[in-house]
């Protein structure tokens, strides 16, 4: 039992922390978020140079590290409220390729991801699926050697910037069957694929992706036809662990900022941190953070266990992180009073991101239901 970082991990942590501190202050972040792309390609290049885009990828394709290293990067991303599409590209996109890809697919994509020349996105949700990953109406019909895709993928983060979008589609079975789901790697400029791009409430970018008779070759199939669900679930659980780490970064920043505000903001002649109700509220925030951090360690260190154990870890961690994040976010706004409501203070931006994290990959209700089913 050991919760310490190795020396290499500590070096990585120092490096990402320094970047966020020095090169990602809130004003820069605001400008970046408000730019057309919603992120900075220069930053992306820096990420590549510093090796962060290779974290968690297989060593034979230039990658290094595993879940703990990903956690370190994502926590810093949370602290800085970083808008670069790290999660869609490195964790989801490259994660799917690493998990299920052919050697050729890995060869062509993973190296490019690591060096920053390929961005990815993952379309898994649909307008009627809510949080059920197995609810796939998008169809892929065989045509010659390849497939024809039709369907609508909802709220695909990072789709506008992605070179390739990985989508789930049904090659057989009924709409909510576990079997019959396949993954396809689709070039973003493929004929028949249209996007509606938009900013999201948390300052990122997402898209509606519609496919009308999109023709792809046999090499677009990622993994075994019809057997993608376990792959998707595994990579989404990795995404959940990463999101948990990001949330912890957000929560810690809010806790520190709000605690500091309580010490400095005066009302009725004393710092408002002298009011016992706010002290106890702040303690509640601290405790939610500690619980969330503990659960993040837990899920990170259990990602490689058997499926049931991994899914229990992911659902329980996500449920805690969703609750804790929204609580700390909302209370930080409340304790900052009017200033917490403003766009110019960072507080509300963290709150909005934490709200989004609660929803992403299924909200508390969804994961408590999964967890209940797994632990009965």
């Amino acid at each position, binding site marked *: 039992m050991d919760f310490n970082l190795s020396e290499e991990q500590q070096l990585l942590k120092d490096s990402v922390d320094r970047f966020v501190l020095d090169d990602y202050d809130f004003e820069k972040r605001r400008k970046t978020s408000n730019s057309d792309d919603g992120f900075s390609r220069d930053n992306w290049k820096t990420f590549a140079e510093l090796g962060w885009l290779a974290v968690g990828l297989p060593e034979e394709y230039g990658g290094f590290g595993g879940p703990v290293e990903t956690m370190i990067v994502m926590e810093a991303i949370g602290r800085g409220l970083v808008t670069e599409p790290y999660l869609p590209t490195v964790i989801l996109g490259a994660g799917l390729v690493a998990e299920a890809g052919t050697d050729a697919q890995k060869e062509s994509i993973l190296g490019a991801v690591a060096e920053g020349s390929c961005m990815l996105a993952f379309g898994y949700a649909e307008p009627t699926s*809510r949080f059920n990953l197995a609810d796939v109406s998008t169809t892929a019909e065989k045509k010659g050697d390849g497939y024809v895709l039709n369907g609508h993928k909802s709220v695909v983060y990072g789709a506008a910037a992605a070179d390739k979008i990985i989508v789930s589609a049904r090659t057989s079975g009924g709409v909510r069957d576990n079997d019959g789901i396949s993954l396809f790697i689709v070039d973003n400029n493929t004929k028949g694929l249209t996007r509606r791009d938009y900013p999201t409430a948390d300052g990122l970018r997402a898209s509606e992706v519609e496919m009308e008779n999109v023709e792809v070759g046999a090499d677009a199939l990622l993994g075994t036809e019809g057997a993608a669900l376990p792959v998707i679930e595994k990579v989404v659980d990795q995404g959940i662990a990463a999101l948990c780490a990001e949330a912890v970064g957000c929560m810690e920043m809010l806790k520190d900022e709000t605690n500091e505000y309580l010490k400095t903001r005066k009302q009725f002649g004393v710092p408002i941190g002298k009011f016992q109700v706010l002290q106890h509220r702040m303690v509640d925030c601290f405790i939610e953070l500690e619980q969330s951090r503990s659960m993040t360690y837990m899920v990170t260190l259990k990602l490689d266990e058997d499926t049931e154990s991994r899914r229990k870890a992911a659902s329980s961690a996500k449920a805690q992180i969703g609750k804790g994040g929204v609580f700390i976010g909302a209370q930080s706004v409340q304790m900052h009073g009017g200033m917490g409501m403003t766009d110019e203070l960072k507080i509300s931006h963290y709150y909005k991101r934490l709200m989004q994290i609660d929803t992403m990959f299924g909200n508390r209700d969804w994961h408590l239901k999964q967890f209940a089913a797994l632990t009965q």
Partner: protein
Amino acid sequence: MDLAFSPDEQAFRSEVRAFLEAELPDDLRHKVRQRQELAREDYLCWQRILHARGWIAGSWPKEHGGCDWTPAQRHIFDEECHAADAPPLLPFGLQMVGPVIYTFGRPDQKEFFLPRLLSGEHWWCQGYSEPGSGSDLASLQTAAVRDGDDYIINGQKIWTSLAHHADWIFCLVRTQKEGKQQEGISFLLIDMKTPGITVRPLILMDQGHHVNEVFFENVRVPVANRIGEENKGWTYAKFLLGNERAGIAEVAWNKKLLQRLKEMAADTPASGDRLLDDAVFSRKVAETEVKLTALEYCNLRILAAMQEGSPPGGEASMLKLLGSEVTQAITELTVEALGYYAAPYELADRTPGSNWSPVGPDAAEGVMGQHLFMRAITIAGGSSEVQKNIIAKMVLGL
């Protein structure tokens, strides 16, 4: 004991309903229903329609242009307006400064201001809060120094709702630095066109321009624009805050929001089921509806007491607390109902008159924005923490 409204009250309800049916413009209905941001002209349009009908100021005495409605009538009017998706009436003139003017103002002040306020010719905003004085309102610092027949005002107000639309602002200013904080405050009416006033937008987390900072730099205000006595402004301010809290429960509006939530959850596909059929989601909706019902009957009890002449005391703080909690619960559930479609957030969404269509289902429009803006209701108008302090002191004697 009896819950029924009287036949007269029921007749009044029909009258209001018929009026709304006939007079409320469809485009306003639509905007409100779709949670769109209303333009200045939208508010004024509705104000003029009500003014023409003589229904712009339900609670005011008839002599000042009001309807002198009973609390029950006001409650009925409110319910019908919200049920019909009528725009809200902004409180700054009608609920706040208007009653101060007709209660404490001079005859010439009443004559000049009240008709213009009612007709919408004067749009009012409220200059209370300052950067250093949030919950601790009486610590305000904006200074008014006497210079002949004028005061010269220097200082800053903040969180001034819709100041960018306003023609006039009512301000608490400090006319005396010595003694108790509360005893050196005066209440002034200031023309927003006066030189030296600058309005700077404060963008909120929903990216909307609802509130402002208002800067005063050597602004000359005639002493004649003072309400009542110098240094007695705190009295008028407290009177105004008391009025602000009447109707604060927002029962009718919350009912409407809850109804919309239920409609949305019934329409939302959740992987083969309706979201409303999910046991956990429907329970959360039911919990919220129970809470709203409790609030409704708390409100009715207090209305009934007011009808018999008891002014609301600490109970008003309770209504404010509960009302704001219910609203936040509903807007949170509404965001939750949308699932991933709560995320898309384009500014066009909040811009009056745009031809933009929402991403995702129609019902998604404005939901996230409303939720984010509604985080303010447990902060503004006396934070929840301050309301609890008030109840602890006034009601429980702690």
